């Protein structure tokens, strides 16, 4: 998400469009560009089969409490060998 800078100065994020005039940080997806994310998850104790659900949310107002939009959801079942040492 573009993190807008309050009045284009300093380190504070702007609250609304009337305060925004710059960028502090920018993590948006840019046209034609690929972004990669990597996550590492330990299986819960005793399990060798794991269902992984990846959800991509668009949060227009920055939190799940306000108008969240589920853009993509992918489910994967991941199993590992049950034998060996």
């Amino acid at each position, binding site marked *: 998400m573009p993190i807008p800078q309050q009045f284009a100065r300093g380190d504070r994020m702007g609250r609304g469009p*009337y*305060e925004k005039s710059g960028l502090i940080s920018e993590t948006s997806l840019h046209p034609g560009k690929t972004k990669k994310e990597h996550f590492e*998850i330990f299986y819960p104790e005793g399990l060798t089969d794991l269902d992984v659900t990846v959800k*991509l949310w668009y949060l227009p107002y920055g939190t799940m409490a306000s108008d969240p939009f589920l853009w993509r959801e*992918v489910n994967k079942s*991941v199993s590992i*060998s049950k034998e060996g040492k």
Partner: protein
Amino acid sequence: MTTKKIKTVWVWTAMIALALSIPLTALAAGIGKEGRIVNKKGKANTIAELVAMYDSSSCIECHQEIHDDWALSVHSRSIYGTGRTAATFRTSVVNGLQEWAFSGVKGPKDVQVEHLMGCAKCHLPQLADANDSVAKELIASIYNWMDAVRAGNDKVRIVEENKLKSLNINCLVCHNRNAITHKWTDGYPQKGVVYGSTDGEHPSDAFPTMKKSAIMGESILCGQCHGLGPNLELDNPTQCATLYGSYLWSYTAEGGRETCQECHMRKSGLGHNMQSYRDPGLAEAALDFKVQTSGFHWRDASNIRPYVAVDISMTNKAGHVIPDG
């Protein structure tokens, strides 16, 4: 000096000033401004007058399908939005204008057209064709609507909601008022003319002429509002949409050649129901999303723990940054 002589001097001074002002007026930048809708009708004093000034209801008779498509888009309720847009106008008054020492706004009654143009530049560009009384009425309506929502007063809420929904980006905003960006090159949009893709007669009493707009199929038409970033021409710059900026510098700069209209109107099949991520087709088309998982046994010295690595790849296939507006 006698009183008569003083009067004579003042009369001559006034006449000289008048004589000087005539050529100055004639030389004002731009030719043809007097033919614009606002010049022909005069600035609006009420919301009702502003709605009437840009009334495009007569378009429905022949363009019902296009109208129905448009009515599904947020262009048809650009001030009200989902309700959140109207609420943000109030926030911009309370947390913005009233807090800024030099805005001249102590309360909602002090709000003038110029104070609202940071928002209205895109949400209601025709507000520039209204007097300050319309700005005050608009803010009063938003306050009344929000108070009615909080109080559960449906009667007032519906009245104010309908008033706010009467203000929008309709046919005449895109096909007349904002149909020409380069007015010294292509002329000022004229009252009675519908700007589109062709020249000719237009079977309408109110709009008897069709003229080709050089930008109707170009991204800059949309870029007027879905903009470049901070609007530095304002006394207190704002930044809402930056989409046209990313279209120019991230998309076309990398070889992209499609226009806003090609994706959001033609390829999507949505026509004048211009949507973004809330349309399933556009949401799907905009992003390539891949997930790869691999499970294995993680060995930390003698401690072995099952482990999964999740690799996610996201490629933006739109012509602009996501998210943006």
